[in-house]
């Protein structure tokens, strides 16, 4: 996983709430067996609309998406994260995220940044006024900065450390393999197994 420390880039204001995973990438695009190549399905239903924010030249190469509350609710498809990353996004700013999407994003190194609605609305207005506004997402300081403003955002220490170091989750867990084996040794034998009964 690519490390995330401090990222400064341009941002795209997506003035919508409740952008569910079917909007981020429709199921039709989930048939591929690769981990990349999903950008063509990103926000598919909106991409034909010339007024859609990512179709505007000023926002087409944005690396930060600033959007409304409950972003990523819906299905567990990690393809939503991959599609956003394939498009070039490094961080998503929203007041609140769907739980599974948020978990998937953290696993893959796409930073979910929770800022209050007022901050999101300030950013929307500022980005409309100046699409080239530089926005900084600073994971070290857990802070977003734009213009004269700054906001801190919450993230637990462990997730932050993993992202800062770009560490492989499975490798981290396997440090505790002895604990897993001990737990398995104590599981009741009546628990079901999937071999044909």
């Amino acid at each position, binding site marked *: 996983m690519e490390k995330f420390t401090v990222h400064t880039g341009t941002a795209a204001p997506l003035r919508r709430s409740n952008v569910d995973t079917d909007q981020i990438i429709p199921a039709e695009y989930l048939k591929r*067996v690769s981990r990349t190549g999903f950008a063509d399905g990103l926000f598919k239903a909106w991409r034909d609309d010339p007024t859609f924010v990512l179709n505007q030249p000023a926002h087409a190469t944005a690396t930060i998406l600033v959007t409304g509350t409950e972003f990523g*609710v819906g299905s567990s498809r*990690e393809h939503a994260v991959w599609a956003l990353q394939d498009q070039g996004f490094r961080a998503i700013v929203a007041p609140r995220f769907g739980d*599974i999407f948020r978990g998937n994003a953290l696993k893959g190194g796409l930073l979910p940044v929770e800022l209050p609605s007022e901050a999101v609305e300030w950013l929307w207005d500022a980005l409309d006024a100046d699409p080239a506004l530089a926005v900084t997402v600073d994971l070290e300081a857990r802070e977003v900065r734009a213009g004269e403003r700054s906001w801190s955002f919450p993230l*637990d220490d*462990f997730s932050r450390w993993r992202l800062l170091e770009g560490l492989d989750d499975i490798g981290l867990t396997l440090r*505790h393999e002895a*604990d897993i084996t001990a737990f398995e040794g104590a599981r009741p034998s009546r628990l079901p197994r999937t*071999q044909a*009964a």
Partner: protein
Amino acid sequence: MSDQPRTLAEKLWDAHLVRAGGDEPDLLYIDLHLVHEVTSPQAFDGLRAAGRPVRRTDLTIATEDHNTPTDNLFSIVDPVSQTQLETLRKNCAEFGVRLHPLGDDEQGVVHVVGPQLGLTQPGMTVVCGDSHTSTHGAFGALAFGIGTSEVEHVLATQTLTQRPPKTMAVTVDGVLPEGVSAKDLILAVIAKAGTGGGIGHVVEYRGEAIRALSMEGRMTVCNMSIEWGAKAGLIAPDETTFAYLEGRPHAPKGEAWDEAVAYWRTLPTDEDAVFDAEIVIDAAELTPFVTWGTNPGQGVPLGAVVPDPSVYTDPVQRGAAERALEYMALTPGTAMRDVDVDVVFVGSCTNGRIEDLRNAAEVLRGRKVADGVTMMVVPGSARVRAQAESEGLHEIFREAGADWRFAGCSMCLGMNPDKLAPGARSASTSNRNFEGRQGPGGRTHLVSPQVAAATAVAGHFAAPADLV
């Protein structure tokens, strides 16, 4: 720890802690991992790249459901779909995972297959790369959906790193009125709580109306927990649960059964346990429900009208309602019963079980699907299909003019050939009415199997009681 009164969710959490404390999240053991073709290929690739095996093939089972046709069992038209299914077959063979492929007697929607095999049991942790894994919470199992990275993590370690969620009680007191189903109940809960109301919480559904539900009804309720953002839904195990499980292929037998039941009886939330939040609902006030918008929280009683966005004081909700009405091509003030439909879909992990099909068939018996309406009935699994046929339900569906199909996710998600045409309006027993969910431009209204069947006959939204 055990002296403190605990909720069911907390008991399940504690019983699966491999390790806790320190700077790291809790490490939780997973008792059952369900796998399907869409969210697993990249996970198996990851294992291969790292040279890791599947740690517990005996706690892992796969089936094919999202991407499969339901009009036949053998001809997959889309080569990309074919590749994805073949990839699952190759991965399962290579890593030693039990697979029920298209055409197999046990094939079906992953959340129908686990319970019907008796693999889902009270007290377990169950995960799957699918958000509707919350279904299995109906048994008093901690069950939740995960992404592909976590699928790989479970395949490699049989564990997940997790932070303890908050707990919430949804208490449904009283008795559901005649004609009001589990689906209506959960749609009403979501309309009340909002699509984000459950975020960060494991929700336990309790109260008299929940206790009175069958296992199928409980699965419908828990299935849609994710539609209001909950991490998982739970219902405490009781005699209904035990009766459903006893004798199923993977249920414990003999002494092990007695031992298991004794343990399961210790699981319900202790009397003095405290939830972080609670919602109380009076079952007597519930009626058949239907969604009008593009998220599952945008629903109203069937007897209501399409709401005017101006009733929402919250500008975010108002904006969402305006956009939803435009997408759905609905006018505020229109009676829901006056809205005509083109397609009726009965099926999915929400309402594709035998009881759902019986409920739909009961309404259709001796009646005809209205002219201009297409009705599809898709059993949740090959077993459900066989059971329905042994009861003659398929004859009722066919005589009514409905299409009786093979098992799969079908029109729930617009990933296989069963899709809603652009602009077409459906009454669907599935779980999501998102824009384009059932096909680009399709307009989805979520309903119960009973309302779906009555709507098919009437041609517009209707309850069985409306039919002459």
